[in-house]
């Protein structure tokens, strides 16, 4: 075996024996700032950094104009250097900037940012994450999304935060044939129609997350309910989905925040849904369950966001009754295994007790019910423990 022991212990683990591709693989997982800093360590690293297929600018804080100028110059120089080295492959581009004021974002940063986005789109980027935010004076709609993004047919993952989509900027959009994940947060659309156009153009989408996607013009619109047939996870918060909810019928996991006064009349039957997280309106919980015949796990929240005051919630009288439905959804009698209720008794103790009691009474295969009560509510445990239970083995925990 001696001829096989060519590598001595000294050599193993040393940087020199690792192939370039492996070094690049590690570097592409690091923040670009780290990669550049490490490039002073050896000529080999210096040579390789132009060829790392991922540019990760995460957690950039721009407080002043000087910060902004330094960062602009850094990225410009870097892209220029890659261009000069003949490096033309950027698979991943991640830019996450927090500005102190919208002025810098709009007028001093975005002219450069748009150039960078156009550049990476030309390099057939697959993973594009553009996350922006403003510390002071939020509430402004985001800067306009460069239209080049809509022509980037190589995208596999697209994550955007704080942008506006101008009317007609989707005019040349022919779809994202490979897009698997789409996350949109705080995005204003001049025309809601454009948002639907975007959604409809993602035939292989599996993972959708939309929060605060809005438009001031929402004329009634049609959406082809046969699109999004591959979608299996959706997260919908702060966004109405009445126009396109029918296209979600293949979901396995859904988190959805319903809105005041809404009844799930146009919900499809979610034949594959096993996990549902529902926010806000508990009056319609049973109606929603009726659309989820195979549901195994149910999580309920009433609290919409942790940063809102109690005054922002619907106020309900503690003694108000809940109208117990006369029917029992199929999932309760055959599938529901876990039920977690958060923000219990946050608004309307009696109603919440009645709902929990109803679930216990009808869920035949329920294994656990966990209740998180934000307020001190003595007596909940004894009331629920003495409820009739369809599942003799159900564990009830109250925190």
């Amino acid at each position: 075996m001696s001829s096989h022991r060519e590598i001595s212990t000294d050599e193993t683990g040393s940087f020199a024996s690792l192939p370039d591709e492996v070094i690049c693989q590690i570097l592409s997982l690091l923040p670009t700032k780290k990669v550049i800093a490490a490039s002073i360590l050896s000529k080999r690293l210096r040579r390789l950094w132009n060829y790392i297929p991922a540019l990760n600018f995460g957690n950039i804080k721009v407080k002043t104009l000087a910060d902004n100028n330094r960062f602009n110059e850094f990225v410009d120089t870097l892209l220029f250097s890659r261009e000069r080295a003949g490096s033309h492959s950027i698979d991943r581009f991640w830019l996450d900037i927090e500005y102190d004021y919208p002025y810098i974002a709009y007028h001093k940063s975005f002219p450069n940012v748009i150039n960078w986005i156009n550049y990476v789109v030309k390099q057939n980027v697959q993973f594009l994450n553009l996350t922006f935010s403003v510390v002071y004076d939020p509430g402004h709609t985001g800067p306009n999304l460069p239209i080049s993004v809509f022509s980037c047919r190589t995208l596999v993952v697209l994550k955007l935060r704080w942008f506006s989509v101008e009317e007609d900027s989707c005019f040349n959009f022919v779809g994202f044939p490979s897009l698997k994940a789409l996350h949109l947060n705080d995005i204003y659309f001049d025309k809601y129609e454009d948002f639907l156009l975007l959604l409809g153009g993602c035939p292989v989408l599996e993972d959708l997350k939309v929060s605060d996607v809005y438009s001031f013009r929402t004329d009634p619109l049609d959406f082809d309910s046969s699109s999004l047939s591959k979608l299996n996870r959706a997260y919908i918060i702060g966004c109405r989905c009445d126009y396109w909810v029918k296209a979600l019928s293949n979901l396995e996991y859904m988190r959805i925040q319903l809105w005041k006064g809404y009844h799930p009349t146009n919900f499809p039957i979610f034949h594959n849904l096993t996990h549902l997280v529902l926010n806000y309106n508990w009056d319609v919980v049973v109606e929603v369950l009726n659309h989820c015949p195979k549901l195994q796990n149910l999580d309920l929240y009433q609290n919409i966001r942790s940063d809102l005051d109690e005054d922002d919630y619907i106020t309900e009288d503690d003694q108000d009754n809940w109208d117990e439905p006369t029917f029992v959804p199929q999932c309760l009698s055959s599938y529901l295994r876990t039920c977690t209720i958060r923000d219990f008794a946050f608004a309307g103790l009696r109603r919440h007790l009645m709902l929990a009691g109803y679930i216990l009474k009808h869920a035949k295969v329920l294994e656990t019910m966990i209740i998180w009560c934000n307020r001190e509510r003595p007596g909940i445990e004894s009331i629920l423990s003495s409820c009739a239970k369809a599942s003799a083995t159900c564990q009830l925990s109250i925190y």
Partner: protein
Amino acid sequence: MAAEKSSIKIITLIAADGSVFEVEPNIVKEMKTVQSYIDELDQNTVSIPLPNVFGNDLAMIIEYCKKHASEEETKEAKEEFDFEFVKRMKSDDKLRLLQAASYLNMESFLQFMAKAIAAEIENQSVEFVRDYFQIESDFTPEEEAELRKENEWAFK
């Protein structure tokens, strides 16, 4: 478990220190270096020398492959295993396993090790990275100072 195309039932892997491992063909599927060796042979048993991998490391790699090839294990159980697997490694172990993964041409294990190493150096200084990989600088102090100046933003 029967092998799909060939009649090979058991594969013997011989590590650099001479230690011997007997594994089923599905376990080595991810090791492209080994697989290409097997594909060229038509025997009931094969024994393959791996002169660049030490026994301790090969044992860990086989443990990882077994866990990930198992169809009974849930995704959560595999993630939990990965977490514990990284936790019990020291820095040198990680680098040796990375090299082994590279030599054996194991795509997903290589990515797994690259992630583990990236996580370890992500929040560390340039000096830490230099010591970690035992990089010997071939820049003169003047050149290094110049590079630091050019890339000032990266050192803030």
